[in-house]
């Protein structure tokens, strides 16, 4: 089922949680609502589910307005951040709940309920735990039971609020892969909320990046990661080195140093000569030049070299502003070949530089 969100606004007293949000969620896709905490992503999810009402705007489910449709009529499977399992019911009864509360004429027979619940428990690979209570399950198991419970009523849409938020790192990684597989099997339109960019990039078909109640960027994980549309997007997705300066001579002037725009990269048309700009470069898009004599590149001092795996991380600080910090990834081999050592003065040159007008 497709979901459309049109001009949604929501305020909590003086705080603007959602500011004129319009989005299209295509059928059968797994979409991530990504953003820092307080960006409005969970509020948007709850409005789509009907657990919260928007001040203005429309929710269209399969093209028809659902703004006044009650939660229980929306046929939405909602998975809560802390799963909200019914503590006094067994796993089996938790999953069966949605079927048991159906009106008499729609309720399946007891044998059908048993069969469906057994099927679902097998789908989430927890068939053996049917008689346990939620308090006897691990976090990962609870999450899967919550998912089975949501799926029991054949929802048209699956909404997941921070599905991995309450799990430890290892289980989280495993369940991510599992959720992706499950989605590929079921093809049910799904939206999940997360503040973890890695999670969004890894699991989602499409990412909606949100900040301060607004949508910053929408696109495939690759698009969003490779071509961040805004300074926020650049900073939020992955590590970024930030340079504040002025646009001058086809590069970014940062105090006395000039950060040249790489020759392969077309200049931005909307930058005014002498105007304030913010530039970003990923750690692997910066090069360290041991020769400090040149006139191009930022002068910096190596403060630490972390050479664990095949890629070494070099931490540097600006030559004259020691509180400004940079991070560069280089192949571990080139640490030796360039003869880099801590305390050394170097210059940094970008091979990729994203420049935004400072506003």
């Amino acid at each position, binding site marked *: 089922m497709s979901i459309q969100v049109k001009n949604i606004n929501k305020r909590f007293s003086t705080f603007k949680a959602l500011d004129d949000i319009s989005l299209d969620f295509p059928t059968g896709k797994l979409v991530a609502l990504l953003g820092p905490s307080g960006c409005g992503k969970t509020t948007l999810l709850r409005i789509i*589910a009907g*657990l919260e009402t928007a001040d203005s705007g429309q929710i269209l489910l399969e093209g028809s307005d659902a703004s006044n449709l009650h*939660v*229980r009529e929306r046929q*939405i*499977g*909602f998975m*809560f951040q*802390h799963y*909200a*399992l*019914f*503590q*006094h019911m067994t796993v089996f009864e938790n999953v069966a*709940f*949605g079927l048991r*509360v*159906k009106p008499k004429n729609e309720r399946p027979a007891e044998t059908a309920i048993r069969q469906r619940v057994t099927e679902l428990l097998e789908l989430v690979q927890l068939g053996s735990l049917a008689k346990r209570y939620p308090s006897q399950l691990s976090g990962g198991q609870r999450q899967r039971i919550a998912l089975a*419970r*949501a799926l*029991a*009523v054949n929802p048209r849409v699956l909404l997941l609020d921070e599905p991995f938020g309450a799990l430890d790192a290892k289980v989280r990684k495993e369940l991510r892969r599992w959720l992706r597989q499950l989605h590929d099997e079921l093809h049910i339109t799904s939206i999940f909320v997360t503040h973890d960019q890695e999670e969004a990039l890894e699991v989602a078909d499409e990412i909606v990046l949100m900040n301060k109640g607004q949508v910053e960027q929408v696109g495939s994980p690759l698009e969003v990661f490779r071509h961040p549309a805004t300074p926020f997007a650049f900073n939020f997705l992955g590590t970024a080195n930030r340079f504040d300066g002025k646009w001058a001579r086809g590069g970014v002037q940062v105090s006395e140093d000039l950060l040249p725009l790489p020759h392969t990269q077309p200049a931005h048309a909307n930058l005014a000569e002498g105007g304030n700009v913010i530039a970003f470069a990923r750690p692997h898009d910066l090069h360290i030049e041991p020769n400090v004599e040149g006139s191009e590149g930022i002068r910096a001092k190596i403060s630490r070299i972390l050479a664990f795996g095949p890629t070494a991380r070099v931490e540097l600080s600006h030559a004259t502003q020691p509180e400004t910090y940079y991070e560069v990834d280089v192949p571990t081999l080139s640490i030796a070949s360039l003869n880099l050592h801590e305390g050394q003065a170097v210059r940094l040159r970008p091979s990729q530089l994203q420049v935004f007008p400072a506003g």
Partner: protein
Amino acid sequence: MSGMVGGIQAYHGAELYELSPATREPKWARYTILGLSLTFFAIFLLMPLLAVFVEALRKGWDVYWQAITNPDTGAAIRLTLLAAAIAIPLNVVFGVAAAWCISKFEFRGKQLLITLIDLPFSVSPVVAGLVYVLVFGAHGWFGEWLSEHNIKIIFAVPGIVLATIFVTFPFVARELIPLMQAQGTDAEEAAVSLGASGWQTFWRVTLPSIKWGLLYGVILCNARAMGEFGAVSVVSGHLRGQTTTLPLHVEILYNEYQFAAAFAVASLLALLALVTLGIKLFIEWKSA
């Protein structure tokens, strides 16, 4: 943990806090504090309780038995049970509704409502009784209308029930509000998103998760309903065998210098208190 070189050691079955020399207080301090609290406990709690039973049985089992099988005592027991039997269900309905409303919804005036629920705790029971006399008494606001329609509230059973309801009003709600607030609304939202109606959500999700708290509130409410003296005393009129509850009956007997009988009836109330405590312990153990 043997074979571990330096680093952090895990303590299994570490010494009890009170036994460890690092956290133990000097002997004299421990015994002084312990002695003080035990003396206090003995004088103010244990002794009166024992005194009730000792005094009740001072003139032997026959007098005791007569006192508690006396028709007036029987009437007092029935009236006490009746008042409790009416007050408790009303209290449960009101308490659950108020707690549900306060903990699961946001609305204006919520704090005021919570304060109002506490009113019977903060107001003297005598004042509560007087209020009913002023409103429903012969010279009260509705006195004339009531006597015209031949309805008696004050100095009659309805007055006693009303006064009991008033003083027990906050018990269930007070017990449930913090519990339900701590539980939040996640489970209810989950139930609704799975298609449950409000009624189904309440019976299948909310009620089972608060049942022990509810029972606890009922027990406290019952103890207060049966033991209430002040408010009931004002509205009762002390008509022997008609409008006296157990606590009032004790007072009447005592004022008539029938000490053994007074203590015998009092011992019933004391037994009730002990049973209540027993149930309370059981519930605490069950719900922990």
